[in-house]
């Protein structure tokens, strides 16, 4: 893939935005804060636990990594975005919280109140 011109860039951007919108409308996206602060707090293990749970339960969700949002105090941070709902940011997530968190939030539709940091308007 090569971006040779401004036109190329804009076309690529439009395509990516469309794809992203579509995904947001149809897929559940779980994002883990994976900067050094997150990783030091155990984000890698949480990330692996999520992947394992997704595979085990055959869940139809997209798992992503992102950088630090600044709430280092609350790491490990996991954001869950279900289509059509406000995004929920969970904090201080531990690997052992993952099965319950996913099944409560994504499967049962309950927000795991004790872990919630904040909701984000989608």
């Amino acid at each position, binding site marked *: *893939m*090569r*971006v*040779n*011109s*401004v036109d190329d*860039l804009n076309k*690529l*951007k439009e395509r*990516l*935005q469309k794809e*992203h919108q579509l995904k947001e409308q149809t897929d559940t996206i779980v994002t883990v*804060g994976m*900067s*050094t*602060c997150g*990783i030091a707090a155990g984000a890698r293990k949480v990330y692996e636990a999520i992947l394992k749970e997704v595979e*085990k*339960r*055959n*869940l139809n969700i997209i798992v*992503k*990594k*992102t*950088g*630090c*949002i*600044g*709430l*280092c*105090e*609350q790491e490990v*941070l996991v954001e869950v975005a*279900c289509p059509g*709902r*406000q995004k*929920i*940011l969970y904090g201080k997530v531990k690997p052992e919280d993952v*099965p*319950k968190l996913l*099944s*409560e939030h994504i*499967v*049962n*539709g*309950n*927000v795991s*109140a004790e872990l*919630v*940091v*904040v*909701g*984000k*308007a989608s």
Partner: protein
Amino acid sequence: MLYRNHILISSHTADAAAIKERFERELAARKLSGAVKVISSPDLIDDSEETLVVVYPEGTFYRGVKADDVPHIVEEHLIKGRFVKELLRCEYDDSTVPSLDRLDFFRKQQRLVLRRCGSIDPEDINDYIRTDGYQALAKVLTAMTPAEVIAEVKKAGLRGRGGAGFLTGLKWEFCAREPEKVKYLICNADEGDPGAFMDRSLLEGDPHSIIEGMTIAAYAIGASQGYIYIRAEYPLAVRRLKNAIAQAEEYGLLGENIFGSGFSFKLLIKEGAGAFVCGEETALMASIEGNRGMPRPRPPFPAQKGLWGKPTNINNVETYSNVPLILLKGADFYSSIGTEKSKGTKVFALAGRIKNTGLVEVPMGITLREIIEDIGGGVQDNRKFKAVQIGGPSGGCLPRSHLDLPVDYDSLSQAGAIMGSGGLVVMDETTCIVDVAKFFLKFTTAESCGKCVPCREGTTRMLEILEAITRGQATLHDLEVLERLARVCKNTALCGLGQTAPNPVLSTLRYFREEYEEHILQHKCRAGVCSDLIQYQIVAERCVGCQACVRVCPTGAIRGEKKAPHKIEVLDCIKCGACMEKCRFDAIIRS
């Protein structure tokens, strides 16, 4: 007996018993009776008339379960581990969750530089492009001359985010003006202040913004080769940067003939070995050249004679990541944020005795109070605010009376602190101010390169005096010598490290002199930190002789019979304070 799963079945419906029995039968058939316990629960109820089934430990809620569904649930959920989607109870209730923009931590922030951090995947260039990435570069390379770029950055009023706050556009102009053909561009990512991690966060969370900013700067000054000098202690940042550079090269956004404009730019990563002084630009260049990281006198400035003797522009990470924003949204937008002389936003790392530690981005001109109390949530454990150290070891310590100081380059420097790279350490009344000065000076003393006398010898002597003060062994004359050394070091050290090393001493002397004098004259440390100046005592009237303190004392310094008042042997006591923490009767006091 440990069960792998528990199944709870609501008992209020007609077919509940049948369902329970069916579960037990299906489990037995699969030899799972010993692993899964089925429980009928009268408490499990909702307003529907359907049977509810919950599978633990996941807590998966199934509703409207019929007896015929049971084999399917057992097969899918209990054996294969998958949810039975059609039976899931899924009703959302988010109303109790506070929304992001209502949270104080975010409400007063203005996240421009950090806007992508925590939202995009830093390892995917597509995420960056989708969120307007490389648009500024496209505009610059196809529609602007280098002079126009510099003019725009100058107009925006962007100042260096690495410390001193020199006007970025002006710095670029100096370098662009040099007639020399070969020029270099350097990104200073040698973030070394204790407790500061703004740059790391940016490099890890949005690496492409730095690449884009650097490419724009390279075009402006006429450089075709750039270096990112980054600490080797930032392995993840290095990896993400390398990955980002590779992706940008693959897309043709770095390298030869970018956007067909004829402009080419190559970017190399140089890993530093972690010397604090290598954040100083001339030392940094020496280090890239393979020499000992030692500063040299300026002039010549890097813009005249920098890396390999060629004109060189150096900015830090945050400065570069401001650049695409300025070019994309325009200087007018950018300069509308901040104060008259300090434009845009600044990222700070909140640390110390503050509730919300972390990384925040605020508009210039915000007050310290807003950062500490509103965004930071105030001092931990409801203690009293005492001081805030701004700008790391080169910065200063500001007292309570300065809480309403607007945070901009000039106000901070007038108050004896500096913007620095953006470290913000909050202290409460349990912090000893002399100890704080000692802490920061210890850092700079260890990190001095040793080249110039005031920094090599002076910081060591200042530290020795501070140590004597905290031991109660100093005189007022020592305080005079300390001030003289601090003044001379500030005035005559060769580089920024030495010139700013005395700032923590000078600012604490300015605002907390009485605390120094207390240590010297009364041998008293009001915060109870300086162990040589404190004593633990047991108040006999309050001591019940429970021996809790005796058990916790690591040196066996507490003596006494059970149920009789105890005593601390002063000579054996190492003043760790463990006894005081343990005592439930407030019988141990510190003086």
